[in-house]
C-alpha cells in the first residue's frame, strides 16, 4: 500500500492550514482502501481547496467555482466504476448551492468533502455561507448580518443518503472518509477546520472550539436512515434498459396524386388546445403520401391551454424555400385568437382562396370564397374542429384528397384510431 500524494508537488498551504491535515487524511483513506491513482478522480473546486487535485497522483478535474459537482455528475455517468471525490470550500457551497441540492437529491455515488474553514481564504477572508455572525473579516460589517448555514442539515433536508460533520483534527477522519467513499450513493462530509492565513487574523478558533461547536449540533455521522435508497446510476440503468428502442421514421411511400398541381399553402387559425399543430402535421403527412415536399411552421404563445395557435403548412412538388404563407389555397378559421393574430391576412385574399370558417368565429372582410362550418351545431368538440376542417377540405378535394387524409390519419395515429 502506497501513498498517492504527488512527490513532485508538495502542498503549498499556509503553515498550520487545516487543509493539509485533510489532504493527509484523504491520502490515508485511499491508501487503506488499496486504491490506485487511476481508480480515483479528484474533482476540485476553486479557492485554496481547489489546489487539492494537484497534490495527488490521481485523475483530476479542476474547473469553475461552485461547479465541481456538475463535472462529477457527468463523469460518474460516463465512468461508473471510478471513485470520485469532490473537494469544495465553504465558498463553493454558496455559489454552487443549486448543484449541492441537486446532488443530494440525485444520489449519484460521489463523495463531497466540504473543506469548511468559515471564510474565503484565497481572496481575503470575506464571509462565506458558514461564517459565524460574530466574526470579522474581509467583508467588514457585511459579514455580521447573514445567518450561517448548517450544510449538514441542508444536505439531509435535500435527501443526502450519507451526511457527516467532522473536525479536520479528529483522528478517525480517514476512516470516516473511507466510509463515505465506500458508501453507495451521495455522501457529504462537512469538515470544519482552521484558516490561519486569513480567518485567524481577526478571529479566534481552536480545534477544541471546533469540537465544542460540533457537540452542540445534532449528531450526523454517516448514513441517513430516512434518505437511504438505491444509487442513481444503477436505477438509471435499470429504467433505461426497460425503454423501447426508437428508430428514425420509416417514411411514407408516395402513392397518391395531389388534387391540384403546384404549391399549396394552408393556414390554420385557432387557439391552444384545439390540436391545431396536430392537424397541421396530419395535413403535412397527407402531403408526403402524395410525394410532396412539406413544411409546417407554427406560431403560438408560451401559455399552454390559452392563446392563439397558428400553423402554416406548405405542400409543394418543388423544393420549399421560404416557409411563411404568401398566397394561401385555404385558410381554416377555428378560433378568434388565431384570427386576431393574422387579421391582416384577410384583406389580401382573393377568390382563389378558400376560407373554411367556423360559423361561431368572426373574420374581417375578405374576397375569398367562404365555406361555413357549423361545428357547434354538429356538436363537434373544440379539440376535433381542426381535424373536422381537414375533412371538409378533403371532401372538396382541395389541397388534399380523401385518400391522402385517410392515409395520414392512419400513419399519425397508427393502430390507435
Amino acid at each position: 500500500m502506497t501513498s498517492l500524494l504527488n512527490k513532485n508537488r508538495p502542498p503549498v498551504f499556509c503553515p498550520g492550514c487545516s487543509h493539509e491535515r485533510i489532504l493527509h487524511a484523504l491520502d490515508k483513506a485511499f491508501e487503506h482502501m488499496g486504491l490506485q491513482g487511476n481508480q480515483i478522480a479528484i474533482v476540485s473546486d476553486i479557492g485554496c481547496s481547489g489546489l487539492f487535485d494537484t497534490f495527488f497522483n490521481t485523475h483530476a478535474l479542476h474547473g469553475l467555482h461552485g461547479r465541481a459537482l456538475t463535472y462529477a455528475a457527468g463523469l460518474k455517468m460516463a465512468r461508473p466504476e471510478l471513485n470520485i471525490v469532490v473537494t469544495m470550500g465553504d465558498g463553493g457551497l454558496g455559489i454552487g448551492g443549486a448543484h449541492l441540492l441537486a446532488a443530494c437529491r440525485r444520489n449519484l455515488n460521489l463523495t463531497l468533502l466540504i473543506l469548511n474553514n468559515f471564510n474565503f481564504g484565497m481572496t481575503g477572508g470575506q464571509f462565506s455561507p458558514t461564517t459565524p455572525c460574530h466574526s470579522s473579516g474581509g467583508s467588514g460589517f457585511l459579514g455580521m448580518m447573514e445567518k450561517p448555514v448548517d450544510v449538514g442539515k441542508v444536505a439531509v433536508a435535500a435527501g443526502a443518503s450519507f451526511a457527516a460533520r467532522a473536525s479536520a483534527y479528529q483522528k478517525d477522519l480517514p476512516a470516516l472518509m473511507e466510509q463515505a467513499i465506500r458508501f453507495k450513493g451521495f455522501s457529504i462530509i462537512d469538515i470544519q477546520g482552521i484558516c490561519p492565513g486569513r480567518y485567524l487574523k481577526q478571529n479566534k478558533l481552536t480545534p477544541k472550539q471546533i469540537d465544542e461547536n460540533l457537540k452542540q449540533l445534532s449528531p450526523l455521522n454517516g448514513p441517513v436512515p430516512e434518505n437511504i435508497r438505491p444509487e442513481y446510476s444503477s436505477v438509471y440503468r435499470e429504467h433505461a434498459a426497460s425503454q423501447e428502442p426508437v428508430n428514425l421514421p420509416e417514411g411514407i411511400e408516395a402513392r397518391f396524386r395531389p388534387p391540384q398541381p403546384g404549391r399549396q399553402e394552408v393556414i390554420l387559425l385557432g387557439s391552444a388546445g384545439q390540436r391545431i399543430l396536430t392537424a397541421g402535421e396530419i395535413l403535412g403527412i397527407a402531403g408526403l403520401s402524395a410525394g410532396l415536399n412539406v413544411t409546417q411552421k407554427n406560431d403560438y404563445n408560451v401559455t399552454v391551454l390559452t392563446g392563439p395557435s397558428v400553423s402554416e403548412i406548405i405542400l409543394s412538388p418543388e423544393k420549399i424555400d421560404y416557409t411563411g404563407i404568401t398566397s394561401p389555397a385555404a385558410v381554416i378559421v377555428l378560433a378568434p385568437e388565431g384570427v386576431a393574430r393574422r387579421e391582416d391576412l384577410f384583406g389580401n385574399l382573393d377568390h382563389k382562396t378558400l376560407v373554411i370558417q367556423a360559423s361561431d368565429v368572426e373574420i374581417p372582410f375578405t374576397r375569398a370564397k367562404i365555406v361555413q362550418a357549423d361545428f357547434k351545431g354538429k356538436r363537434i368538440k373544440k379539440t376535433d374542429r381542426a381535424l373536422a376542417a381537414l375533412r371538409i377540405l378533403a371532401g372538396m378535394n382541395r389541397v388534399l384528397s380523401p385518400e391522402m387524409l385517410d392515409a395520414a390519419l392512419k400513419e399519425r395515429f397508427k393502430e390507435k384510431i
Partner: protein
Amino acid sequence: MKLSLLEGNEAMAWGAYHAGCRFFAGYPISPATTIFNTMLRILPPCGGTVLQAEDEISALGCCIGASMGGLKAMTATSGPGLSLCSEQISFAIGSEIPLVIAEVQRLGPSTGSATRGADGDIQFMRWGNSGGMPLIVLAPVDIADCFTLTAEAFNLAEAYRCPVILASNKEIGLTRESIDLKTLRWPKRIDRSPPSGNDPFLPFKSLPGKNVPGFLPIGGNHIVRQTSSTHGAPGYITTDPNEIAAMLERMKQKIEADVDKFTFAEAVIEPKAETMILCYGVTARAAKAVCNTLKAEGKPVSLLILKTLWPVPENFIRQKTEQVTNILVPEMNLGQYVREIERILKHKHIEFLGQMDGRLITPDRIKEVLNDKFAQ
C-alpha cells in the same frame, strides 16, 4: 422515395446520435426542449445517458465531465440558457474539451419571447466567453442541415477539441419539414485522437504536426489531468509567460488557421450579377426564394449562404464576392454578422436589412430593400 416529416430539433437529436453522441444533459427551455425530449427517447435504450440538470450551468458542466470521461456530449438550449453556459464554454475552450451546444435561438433580449424566432445571439456565441478565444459556430438552414451539420459539429468538436455551437433558430428547430432520409449525406465519423508515440502522456501536448493534443479519458488506465487554470502541457498551473503565450496561440491557430477545411456554405454565383445576398440560417430560405424570382424576371442576383459562421471564413467570403459590388446582408437581429462582412470587404457597397420582431424576414421585404438600396 419515402418521405418523413420531422422537426429541426428532432433532426438535430438524430444527427447527434448518428455522430456517436451518447451523453446529453439539458434543462427545459423553449424552443429547444424537443431536442431534450428526442434525446430522452433515443439514448437511454441504447446505453446512453440523458440527465435533466438543475440549470444550464450544470447541464454543460455535466457534458464537460462526460466528455472528459470519453463520451461525445451535447446540450441544447436557447439564449437565456446560453448566457448561463458562458463560464463553462470558456472552460471547454481553454481546456480543449469537445462538446456540442445546440442553441435554438429565440427573440431576446433576456427572456424575451420564448416561442418567437431570432438570430440575436450570433456575436454572443462567439464572444460570450471569458478570454475571447475562438470556437466554432455552424448555422443550419433546413432539416437536412439539422441532421448532417449536427454530425459535422461533433466531428469538428472531436477533431479540434473545442466546443461547437449550432446556431439554430425557433423557425428551424420547431418547423417540421419533409425529408427523404436516404438522401442525407452523412460525414464520415471522426473520433478524438489518442496521443501518439511512447512518450509519457501529457494531456496538453499537441500531436506531431498538429495544433491539437491527443486525448485520453479521465478514468482510463493512464492518469489524466484536466484543469481550467492556465496550464502547460502537463496540465499543471503555469506562470511562464512564454509557455502561456505559446499555448494560447496554438489554441487560436488550431481553429482559425484551419477554417478553410471546414467552411460549409452554399453559393449560387450568377455570372453577370453585380449584387449578392449574403446570409445564413432561416433567412437564407427567403433569400433563395428572392434569387429564384429575380432570376425568372431576368435580373439575377448572386447568393452566398454561410453555414460556418465562426471562425469567419474570410478567404472563402473574399473569393466568392470577387465579382460583386453590392452586398445585402439580411439578419433576424439589428446588425451582427454584417459587422464581419463590413470588416472583411471594406471596398464593397454593403447594406444591412435587420428585423427583430419575432417574424421571418419575407422575400418581398428583401426584394424591396435590394431595389431601394442598389437601384436594380
